[in-house]
């Protein structure tokens, strides 16, 4: 138990610098975006906001940018990606948990993808996805799958899925390694007791192991879901959101409007829409993941 005088100034003095720095680093962009979301302002034509246009930017986000398509793509990517990565990772973790020889080496190999910069992962897969000669496309063709004529990244049916494959490659090991650590911390007595009571492997997994590692699972699912929701680097290298808008995510849509078209007012309005969406998701998550957290 820690019993300290709650009113002494020291802890607050120690916290203040980080709070002040972070607050100013965030309040400025947010304020900037809020003010400019009401102005027409294209950076290519003017270094300063041009004209107050009320809520038009917010309207235009939906009218002239594929905001809803981007939102849909982002949700497909984050929900599908998190789901696949979690269960794939869980499978690998269970294999590692067999406690055979060589699992340390397997774990070391698995860590490698998570160390690679996402932009580099993009290049790794762009090369593998290359029409015809790319290793991945070539293997798919060899296995009898029809690879689209314009390549996996050039077809609107496969572009988003291809981005997901690259992300699954990089981040499934994250789930595998963390869940493996979780499995190792499950007390052996509990597992033994269940076995004596005649529980099958499947029952053991669903009734005993999964509930025990649930707190860990919830937190990593939350972290990964948000990282997927913010997906930018892979889209930037692999498809630039294309073909058309087939693989455009919210982050890429914002980047495109703000830093390709330099439509700052419109991008500012979109920033706030995204901030509202993200804030809602994060708060719901936090309520679930940190409900019984001990601070």
């Amino acid at each position, binding site marked *: 138990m820690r019993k300290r005088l709650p009113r002494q100034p*020291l802890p607050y003095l*120690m916290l203040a610098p980080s709070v002040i720095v972070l607050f100013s*680093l*965030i309040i400025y962009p947010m304020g900037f975006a809020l003010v400019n979301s009401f102005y027409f302002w294209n950076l290519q034509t003017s270094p300063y906001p041009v004209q107050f246009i009320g809520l038009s930017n917010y309207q235009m986000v939906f009218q002239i940018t594929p905001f809803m398509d981007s939102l849909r793509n982002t949700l497909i990517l984050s929900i599908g990606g998190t789901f696949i990565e979690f269960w794939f990772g869980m499978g690998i973790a269970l294999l590692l948990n067999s406690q055979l020889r060589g699992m340390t080496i397997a774990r070391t190999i698995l*860590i490698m993808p*998570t160390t690679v*910069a996402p932009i580099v992962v993009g*290049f790794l897969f762009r090369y593998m996805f290359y029409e015809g000669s790319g290793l991945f496309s070539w293997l798919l063709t060899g296995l009898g799958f029809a690879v689209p004529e314009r390549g996996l990244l050039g077809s609107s049916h496969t572009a988003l899925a291809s981005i997901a494959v690259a992300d699954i490659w990089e981040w499934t090991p994250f789930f595998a390694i963390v869940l493996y650590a979780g499995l190792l911390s499950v007390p052996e007595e509990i597992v033994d007791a269940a076995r004596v009571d005649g529980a099958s492997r499947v029952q053991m997994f669903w009734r005993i192991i999964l509930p025990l590692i649930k707190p860990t699972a919830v937190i990593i699912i939350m972290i990964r879901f948000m990282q997927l929701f913010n997906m930018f680097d892979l889209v930037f290298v692999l498809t630039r959101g294309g073909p058309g808008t087939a693989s455009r995510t919210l982050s890429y849509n914002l980047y495109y409007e703000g830093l390709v078209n330099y439509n700052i007012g419109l991008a500012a309005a979109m920033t706030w829409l995204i901030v509202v969406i*993200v804030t809602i998701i*994060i708060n719901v998550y936090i309520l679930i993941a940190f409900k019984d957290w001990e601070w």
Partner: protein
Amino acid sequence: MRTPIQQKLLVYLALLPVLLFFIGPILWFLALALRPPETAFTVPPQFIFTPTLKAFEYTFLEPGNNRNQLLNSVIVSSGATLLSLPFSVSAAYALSRFQLRAKRFLMLWYISLLMAPPIVFLIPYFVVMARLGWVGTHASMIIVLQTITIPFSIWLLKSFFDEVPDELEEAALVDGANRLQALLRITLPLALPGIIVTSMFAFVFSWNNTVFPLVLSNQRTATLPLGTLSYFATTGVTWNYIAATAIVTMIPPMIIFLLLGRYIVRGLTFGAVKG
């Protein structure tokens, strides 16, 4: 009932393709960096070739356009890590050692910053840095990276401070030391491994960040991950150079993660899972 030997064999048989899937793309890109350019896009892919270091020579020695980017990456990543330390060490210590009413709120605020989309901050930063004339400086990237390094380091460091027993400090306080002395002489040295681990993670996250340098750097200050893009933008995509640059970009984070060993789980989960 399967015999144990069969069972073992099954585990290995299942793991082998999995491991191949996860290491394959890295090895294939290493091969791309080492292969003669004319073998890069053949059908079927060529697995056997005479390796050459020409791509590495071109990118890092002569003319070596990427050498400078390597230096920029070191400057920006170390700068971002070092700048965040005083802020995060003090905040993490306060959050670990004191019962504060705002503790829950602050911790959740820090972690929600980590989960916010970085691109959201980027456009305003770009406009203000442009007005200040700071676009293209290392400082602009180091400052903006604090939105990641500070909250991350606070979370991870708190988990390490939590593990340093309080009693030692209390004993020092009884012996007449003040809080600051107790922190500097007792807890800080004991938490030093944790501080080093945290710095290593902060370094890797800064190193691998591309979004901020993409917008805030210029040709002179571009970081190494952006170096891959420079060959991509030119016509007749020179994939061997991309691969060579990418391989060098990968090496520092890989070495650091190998050194981090059992701390990886904790770092990747911001200290939330001890591992």
